[in-house]
């Protein structure tokens, strides 16, 4: 049953991705200043949004782990699995942002990279979560989960900075499209529709990976638990 649902969901995701691609490349109108390259917008921004969301998942998982670790072991383990999955998949999406950004920048600005606030903070965010994953590999033993949860909380402190960076500072990176000034927002409905579909598609795709990663981690936790029980009864 579970398998069927996941398979159906996966198929739906693929359909959405194809539809989003069609919308972004063929339906959405060409932008006046940047022309064709602007279409990378439909991948760049949704990825960033999904990455933020998943880092939030990681934060909630981390807090949950710290809250439950003394009282409810199972909930704590579930929280920890979410924290790990959120961080890992978040890093993947953040990487997509960091690849699509320079690709776009090369055409729009003539250079791959510049050290403005938005770009720098995004890079720092990525680095923090990579170090989170490294910590999970390097530190051994039962305290890993606690230490990682602590670092997860620190990492999340950077997310609002990234989000606000092009609101606080004048950046070379474009000003916010949504929730920026009074004249922000996408005016062209076809563009907005293409953007909406792509956000939905990338979200669906991200959630699929997230859930799979969570599932694998839970499975591993159960195996470890089983081994522990065996050791106890041996």
């Amino acid at each position, binding site marked *: 049953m579970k398998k069927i649902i996941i398979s159906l969901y996966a198929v739906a995701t693929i359909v959405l991705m194809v539809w989003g691609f069609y919308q972004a490349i063929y339906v959405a109108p060409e932008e006046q200043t940047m022309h064709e390259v602007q279409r990378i917008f439909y991948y760049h921004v949704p990825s960033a949004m999904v990455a933020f969301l998943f880092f939030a998942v990681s934060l909630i998982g981390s807090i949950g782990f710290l809250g439950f670790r*003394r009282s409810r072991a199972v909930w704590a383990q579930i929280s920890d699995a979410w924290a790990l999955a959120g961080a890992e998949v978040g890093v993947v999406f953040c990487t997509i942002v960091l690849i699509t950004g320079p690709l776009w920048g090369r055409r729009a600005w003539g250079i791959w990279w510049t050290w403005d606030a938005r770009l720098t903070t995004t890079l720092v965010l990525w680095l923090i979560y990579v170090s989170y994953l490294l910590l999970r590999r390097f530190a051994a*033993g*039962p305290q890993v989960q606690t230490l990682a949860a602590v670092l997860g909380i620190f990492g999340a402190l950077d997310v609002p900075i990234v989000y606000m960076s092009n609101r606080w500072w004048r950046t070379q990176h474009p000003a916010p499209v949504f929730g920026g000034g009074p004249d922000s927002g996408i005016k062209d409905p076809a563009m907005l529709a293409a953007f909406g579909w792509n956000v939905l598609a990338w979200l669906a795709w991200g959630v699929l990976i997230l859930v799979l990663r969570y599932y694998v981690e839970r499975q591993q936790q159960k195996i*470890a638990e089983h*081994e*522990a029980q*065996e*050791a*106890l009864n*041996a």
Partner: protein
Amino acid sequence: MTANVCEADSTVFCARLNEVSKLFGSFAALRQVTVDLEPGRCYVLLGENGAGKSTLLRVLAGLLRPSFGTVKVFGDNAPQDARARIGYMSHAPMLYDELTAQENLRYFASLYPGRPCLAPAEALKQVGLDPALTRTLGQYSQGMRQRTSLARVLLPVPELLLLDEPFSNMDVESARQMVELLAGFRQSNRTIVITTHQREMAAPIADWVLTLHAGRVASFEPGSPIR
């Protein structure tokens, strides 16, 4: 001090372990240990290397949390909530090499605010050290360090005393003195748990002897003189 003793008196158990297991990864260091410790008794923990003695003490001290089962001390408290009333001495001295014995003790005493502590000099005298020594701890011999460590534990006059191989580096005469000191402690209704490999050393004060084997309680019997 008297108040504390009465407090310890009023509960039937000083510490209560219920089905305690401790796993390190997939290695079980303790398996379903159930023990009640009564106040005013001295318990001697025996067992071969790796049997889980130190682990049991650390669980009692609240430094390790059991993987399964519960630990309660002084009624219904978790050990973490009664840290001021538990004294724990481990294999390692738990003292700063760079300070003198007095400085070390004064430092640790001031970490127990609001608790009537012994004077550092007095604690040192109790364990048979000269309080006037000005050498830093790094220059002490192993046995002297161990005594200072014992003095550190005695400072806040704990009601539950956990000693991990306290005699391992002492000569026989000093060990005998230590045992006498501990015997006095037991009479003021404090509980003592000692691990040791030299069973005959602790025999004079052993009310109960608990033997561990591969993390399990192998036997729990009244203390007896040397066979």
